[in-house]
């Protein structure tokens, strides 16, 4: 475990020191009643980075993402976004300040059309501006043009995931939180999802990603945090985390 400790010390800060840190969690604690999901967690995300949160089921990854947007109960520590304290803000205020969450399981409004789903994601935009953003997303998500007036609940899982990501992007967030985007999708569709994340990287979208598929996630990420039982076990540049030692540690934790 000593090597993990070194990793954490040396590279818990952004890969590119010149880039401005936009999200900073300090000593964050999340608890559901007596159950502590996240303990004393420090995390930073710099502009333009892709940061991945790895860990076994129940490690606290999703709790962490939800805590950032105020959907899970924050009981300690603080979170700042672009220098503003958002620890006590309501979810809608945080979302409107520029952080978007693609929740686990996609959670589209299944009774509504694809366009209405996106309209809700871009509710802060004026109608003309929304239409422009909607058009702009068409080249990344051709599904939007084809199925704009289809009921979202009738789309396939892969299509729904694309709509869920598009819904989070349409409001032009400066930080995108992706919770398990490949979960429950066929391998060929998983490829498509990772292609989309790579394309978002080229477009300089800052992403905090929670992903079970550690190998693929580390390939596209700049940095990563490995969580276990609510605490960060290791942190560092994605390339370093990819070493088998870390992966073994991670898998070992997963088995425990």
């Amino acid at each position, binding site marked *: 475990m000593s090597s993990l400790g070194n990793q954490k010390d040396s590279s818990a800060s952004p890969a590119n020191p010149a880039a401005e840190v936009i999200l900073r969690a300090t000593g964050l604690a999340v608890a559901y009643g007596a159950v502590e999901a996240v303990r004393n967690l420090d995390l930073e995300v710099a502009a333009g980075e892709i940061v991945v949160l790895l860990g076994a089921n129940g490690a606290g990854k999703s709790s962490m993402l939800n805590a950032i947007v105020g959907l899970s109960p924050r009981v300690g520590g603080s979170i700042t976004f672009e220098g503003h304290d958002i620890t006590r803000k309501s*979810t*809608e205020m945080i979302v409107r300040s520029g952080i978007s969450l693609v929740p686990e399981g996609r*959670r589209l409004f299944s009774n509504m*059309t694809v366009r*209405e789903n996106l309209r809700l*994601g871009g509710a802060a935009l004026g109608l003309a501006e929304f239409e422009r953003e909607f058009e702009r997303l068409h080249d990344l998500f051709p599904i939007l043009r084809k199925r704009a007036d289809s009921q979202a609940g009738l789309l396939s899982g892969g299509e729904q995931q694309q709509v869920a990501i598009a819904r989070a992007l349409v409001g032009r967030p400066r930080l995108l939180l992706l919770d398990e985007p490949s979960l429950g999708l066929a391998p060929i569709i998983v490829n498509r999802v990772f292609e989309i994340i790579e394309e978002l990287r080229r477009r300089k979208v800052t992403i905090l990603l929670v992903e079970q598929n550690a190998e693929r996630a580390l390939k596209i990420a700049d940095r990563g945090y490995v969580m276990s039982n609510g605490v960060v076990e290791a942190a560092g540049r994605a390339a370093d985390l990819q070493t088998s030692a870390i992966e073994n540690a991670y898998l070992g934790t997963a088995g425990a």
Partner: protein
Amino acid sequence: MAMSQKWWPRALIGSAQILVLVSLIVAGVSLLGSSTDQRILTVFLINLIAAIGLQIYTGTSGIISFGHVGFMALGAYGSALFTADPAIKAMGIPNAPDFILTSAMGFLPAMLIGVGVAAIVAAVIGRVFVRLGGSAAAVATLGFMVMVFTVLSNAEEWTRGAKAFSGIPAYTTMGWCMGAFAVILVIARLLRESDTGLGLRSSRDDAIAAQASGVDVVNSRYVMWVASAACSAVAGALYAHYIGAILPKAFHFELTFLIVTMVIVGGQSITGAIVGTLLITILAEALRRLENGFSLGSFSLSEAPGLTTAVLALLIVFTLTMRPQGLVGRWELDDLTMRWLAKRRPAASGAALPFEKDRERNPAA
């Protein structure tokens, strides 16, 4: 489909379609119906406004309110007190304040006072009420209705208490009813299709996803709650000036369950409220005639009081178990006509059907 890109043309087209249909019913009954039929028609239109008023809140938030009859009562008494003949008021409520005793307003300003009172009360209690859902909301709204009833029954100096307050000018004509219906229908549809309405409807689909999309559920509900109360008050004012005499008992459990049944049976949309009102009105009228006794072959029943209430209760139970989304579900008339047109001309429209069910067209599945 350029039409679906903007929200307000949908609302206006949908309102126009409904207005045409209701106008046809009104014209038909006015020309062909007896005076009894016309009386039923007027009550139908007043109940229709009350049901749409309730649906503005219930249809978007998914929360049923048993308190809207309280807002109807405020609208009714507000309008009645300011329009009744001062001579009658001097006898009936001699101890009322001067601004009520001397007032002899026209219908519209008095109605607006009633609506204003209801809106202010809704705005005050709404801050708490809109945070409630499920059974807590049901109990709280029911409690509000009973509170209004109790206050009106005991405020004898203003309302004559439990006794009938009469001498209310008979201002309510078919024209007033249709005018009020048209205005409230358009308001209801605009609110429903607006971003606020869309956000709130999304929250009944998935509250977490709605919040994650930046929907402010509490404030959206609050907007709908106040608008909904104001529209209910209009129905109350129309009722007072149609019957000519009101008493607190008229705005109690019986009317509450009638309006709530209309909304639950009809569905979650404005169109649903209209279908529900139409169905319940016809059913209640048929049952009312049966209550006075009927014979069927050798079987005859002399009198069956309470038959209407019993059947309405059964209808709620049946709807909630067999078809909880109501008869028309969440669809509006314009959704249904668009779907029908798209099915008739699938090649011409070129776009996907809004209600597409065929998964074959979806190879990525």
